[in-house]
């Protein structure tokens, strides 16, 4: 996996970016999350956004999922 400047991410970095993307996907699509699950996932995705952004992965905006 490469970032937008063409730099290859390390294995750990790739895993974190995947984690971010997975969380965004879950928060967008899932209606079966309990409130405690959703709010903690939102907190996590807000923090993971900083990683994806810092790695120059263009994480976009996530206001639509509440983060």
């Amino acid at each position: 996996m490469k970032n937008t400047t063409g730099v290859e991410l390390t294995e750990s970095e790739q895993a974190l970016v995947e984690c971010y993307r997975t969380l965004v996907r879950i928060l967008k699509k899932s209606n079966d999350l309990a409130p405690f699950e959703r709010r903690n996932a939102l907190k996590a995705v807000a923090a993971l956004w900083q990683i994806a952004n810092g790695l120059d992965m263009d994480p976009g905006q996530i206001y639509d999922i509440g983060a």
Partner: protein
Amino acid sequence: MPREQIEALQVRKLKNLLAWTQESVPWHAKRLKAAGVSADNVNSLSDLGRIPMLTRDEWMEAQLEQPPYGPLLAAPQEAAIRYHLTSGTTGRIPLQVLDSMKDWEWIAEMWCYGFWGFGVRPSDIVFFAFSYGTFVGFWGAHYASEKIGCLVLPGGNMTTEARVKQILGMKATVVCSTPTYALRMAQEARSMGVDLENSSVKRLILSGEPAGSIPATKRLIESEWGARAADTAGMTEVGTIMIFECEKQPGGTHIIEDHFIEEVVNPESGEPVPYGEQGERLITSFGRGFIPVLRYRTRDLVVRVPAGTCSCGRTFDIYEGGIRGRVDDMKLVRGTNVYPRAVEAIVREYKEIDEFRIHLYTADGRQDEIEVLVEIAPAHDSQAERILHELRKALSQAHEGLRIGVKQVDAGSLPRFELKAKRLQDDRIVIGTTGERRTTA
């Protein structure tokens, strides 16, 4: 990151920001369209000049027309978790802003640049001399300290004496405050008979006033605390800091260029000024998407120099001397420009002076006068005459021979400040009237 990569990153982020703004904020979209700007036709930093500048007045008017936030929000209010206000340094009404969870994390992230860059680490104990209100101030710094893993001491709603006691009692290693309040705490410690110089405090992180980069003020703070002090500066309009001083203390502050584009322009013509020349900073922020900020006129005066002037290895350019004042700070007194920062730089050379105020008034209804009122620490009262004489001379020499009165006032009689200090009082009237107040320099 090499400069060319930083610039390439900025261009890509700028295009993303423009696309987001056009899509989500019709008010901005209209302005951009009128200027012929779109995400598609901005391809280099040289295209920046085509993007309309945003002034505080425009932001304020937009808010007044459509309260409380104006037509500037890019996301529904329901996505917000934070509300803050500007402190009102300039302008009629405060600006009101919102942040989402992601924005709030980003705000802390920017403060992490400053804290980590100045050597703050998880083992540190950080005390905040901050009142935790709607002014954003050190809020982001508080969360940054938690994020780094420090032990955080939130010193809100405390007297100065109680703060000094807690700093000592909890063995804080880092103290965050305005430069003015750092000196206030040092004065308080002195009157309590406390030796701050040998305390556990190793670092002070300053923000909220330009004084953090005035060499004399900084020297005084560092000597009173026996610790190193770093300047930072932020603004509510972007929610966080955009510049910070690193551990090498290069005499200025690094610009966080992977999250902001900072331009320096002539405040009158709006044209870019070269490295080394003073101008007004414009900011474009990539972080807070809730309220996109494009080429915002800050009114802050800065001098930008290349990153290479610092030995830390960062490739972020530097504002030499931090923020040097504000475009509207300058006062014209009998044809001479007077900047409060320049006066402070001279006054702070005198360690014996505890507090001061710059007072402008009209004498006999026909002449502008300026005087500096100073409080001399009681222990140095016997030297008052010498200090007043020397200060009068130094101030005059630094202002083209302008006559500047210097008067001693009673110890403790001038106001003290926790947040932004207001040390200039302009009581001048319109010459020829019986008391009509002047509104401009």
